């Protein structure tokens, strides 16, 4: 037994040291979540507009296109649950905040979790998902947090990027398609040009939408998410901040495969909130002004598209002050 334990310890020394080193490295790693959050705190006195949402907003809304000081606090997969808690954690520190843009996409009203991305919000912004206890995740980000697989791929990416671009490139993880020599401005970084793979392939649209549909059809969270959103809007209004609901543009051919009954249900739910709180909704989903060149892939804008879209958002702010509270269609 002694020999067995001795050799087992010998064998385990290397993996244990490796895990400890990885844990230290991961704890000290910046992420887009933490960098954006810290950026918001640094500019807390200037921020007048806060942009929330998932990857569509993360890479699709350029705060520089706004006349007021806007800040993009959207993150990949970020659900309304996290939008709300992120804003709540900051709102008292943002004295000049006037508008909060809340993104409502095809699937937004059906889930509160971001799946494996929940942990990113926890490490980046200290936001916990529901009553989940993060004891193990605090002990070892490698084993229990990011997971060994994701941690190793982060390490691989970091090493390869360092070798390719040197110290100057972004020090945190971003999606493929983002220029690593770019800089984060007001929480925004964009996709360059267009995805090289066959993202504009109809089969890809179908299967991507299928993934959403399967989750939506089996979701039991709609009521809960709507209640959370309602509460979020109510809180913002009570803090003298105007919430603006919006839907980002997605490529027209892609939109034809979306389930119209889900879209109509979304619009009914949105309409209910508009009537209750007299707030605005800007629907750019099928807006004809966006062409193929404006997209990185079927449902994400690229740099050019983001600028175009953000200018339009800026223009509509002044219009909705005086005119109609709804921009775009409410029914499919």
């Amino acid at each position, binding site marked *: 037994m002694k020999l*067995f334990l001795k050799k087992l310890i010998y*064998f385990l020394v290397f*993996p244990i040291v490796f895990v400890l080193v990885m844990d230290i490295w991961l704890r000290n790693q910046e992420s887009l979540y933490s960098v954006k959050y810290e950026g918001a705190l640094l500019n807390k006195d200037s921020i007048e507009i806060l942009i929330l949402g998932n990857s569509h907003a993360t890479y699709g809304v350029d705060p520089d296109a706004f006349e007021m000081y806007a800040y993009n606090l959207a993150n990949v997969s970020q659900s309304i649950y996290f939008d709300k808690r992120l804003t709540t954690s900051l709102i008292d520190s943002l004295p000049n905040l006037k508008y909060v843009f809340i993104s409502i996409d095809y699937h937004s009203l059906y889930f509160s979790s971001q799946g494996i991305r929940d942990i990113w919000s926890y490490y980046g912004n200290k936001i916990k998902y529901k009553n989940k206890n993060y004891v193990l995740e605090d002990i070892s980000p490698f*084993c*229990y947090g990011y997971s*060994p*697989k994701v941690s*190793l791929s982060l390490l691989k990416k970091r090493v390869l990027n360092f070798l390719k671009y040197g110290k100057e490139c972004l020090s945190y993880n971003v999606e493929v398609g983002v220029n690593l020599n770019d800089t984060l401005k007001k929480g925004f970084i964009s996709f360059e040009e267009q995805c090289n793979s066959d993202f504009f392939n109809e089969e*890809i649209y179908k*299967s991507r939408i299928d993934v959403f549909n399967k989750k939506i059809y089996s979701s039991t969270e709609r009521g809960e998410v709507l209640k959370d959103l309602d509460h979020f809007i109510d809180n913002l209004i009570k803090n003298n901040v105007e919430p603006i609901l919006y839907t980002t543009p997605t490529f027209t051919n892609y939109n034809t495969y979306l389930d119209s009954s889900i879209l109509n249900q979304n619009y009914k739910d949105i309409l209910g909130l508009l009537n209750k709180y007299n707030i605005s909704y800007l629907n750019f989903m099928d807006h004809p002004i966006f062409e193929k060149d404006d997209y990185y892939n079927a449902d994400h804008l690229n740099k050019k598209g983001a600028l175009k879209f953000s200018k339009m958002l800026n223009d509509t702010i002044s219009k909705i002050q005086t005119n109609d509270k709804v921009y775009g269609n409410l029914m499919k």
Partner: protein
Amino acid sequence: MLFNSIDFAIFLPIVFILYWFVVNRNLKLQNLLIVLASYVFYAWWDWRFLSLILFSTIVDYSVGLGLAKEDNKSKRKILLWLSILVNLGFLGFFKYYNFFLDNFISAFSFFGNEINANSLNVILPVGISFYTFQTLSYTIDVYKRKLEPTRDIIAFAAFVGFFPQLVAGPIERATNLLPQFYKKRLFDYTKAVDGLRQILWGLFKKIVIADNCAEFANQIFNSSADLSGSTLVLGVLFFTFQIYGDFSGYSDIAIGISRLFGFDLMRNFAFPYFSRDIAEFWRRWHISLSTWFRDYLYIPLGGSRGGTGMKIRNTFIIFIVSGFWHGANWTFIIWGALNAIYFLPLLLTKNNRSNLDVVAAGKYLPSIKELSHIVFTFSLTVFAWIFFRADSVGHAISIISKILSSSLFTFPNFEGMARAMFTVLLVGGFILVEWNGREGEYAIAHWGLKWKRMYRYAIYYSIILAIFWFGGKDQQFIYFQF
């Protein structure tokens, strides 16, 4: 608790330390620890169904004692049937109730009689098919006087609930496992190290091979209507390696863990996809189940001793029952029948025991003849898996008709094809390792044993890294549903 979970990674060392350092001087306490650990292991999934295991344990223990006291033949038979009815009654209710009800209703509707009966939302207790057969083996062996009944209820409870093999086998024979609980276990260094190696290889098979293949097999089978024949062939091949990696991986982990605790479980897989005929395949695939059916069903039915008619009848019975054991669906029954059809020509021509040795033993490569036999047997097996994996008989037939269409001659294509090609490469590498190690108990049993420790460890670290790096999305072990 799943073997490939963090919970189990914490549970196993705790039980190991308690077993070898705290209760190591007292056999009864060691057995009691195994019982408690096994119940915790099972309750992690659903504590309510522990009552079934407890009930089965008490019934079979009591029946065993009853058989020991009773000499009257008919009373002994009654005791045996009591055990069979209780065990198969639970199995029948939880696993087959809805199947029989639905088919009963369909049969009556066919003759114009409508019956209103509600099917129940019955949850299948994990592992019920495995521990039921294990306890039955005890009662039958005691009845046949092949085994002395135990008077040690803790040892018997440990035998029924032994956590490494509780939920997915190998289905142990009482004659093999139960006596191991009576003897003091001494820690055996070689056995423990070999156990760890086998666990590592089992995890690789499950997490890297099975889970990666599962992703594409599920995707292809779930959208089979829209895919070409060649893509469907790829899907069936993915399933072929998924089920092998999944189930044999589980068995390797179970056997390896048992070795850490000083137990020897029976071998469950012996490189079945290198078989040269179907008879050899069935001597190498899920050995604990095949031999269970052989010993407790086929031989009592007369085996292959009778005339041709009897041989055909018995072969069909054993294969169809084996198929039905896997699940309450006609697809499993057809899968079993298909294997009976494959097997019969070998049995009737007395060629069913012509390949008893390891293929191309001591050589690097098989001969052309051996290779052609392997490929032919493998193709038959792959074809039968279509029924095993399909949702219904109609689904299986639609897949086969698509495979037999002209679209078979197109290049496979589906969303995720590029990633699937990487999995094909992984499977290719896996086949080479398995081929290389086919003369051992498991593929890496003898790998690097004579190398310097540094190189040997490098191999083990590489396998661990591969598990983390290439591991597929978490999938439930397939055999948990049986």
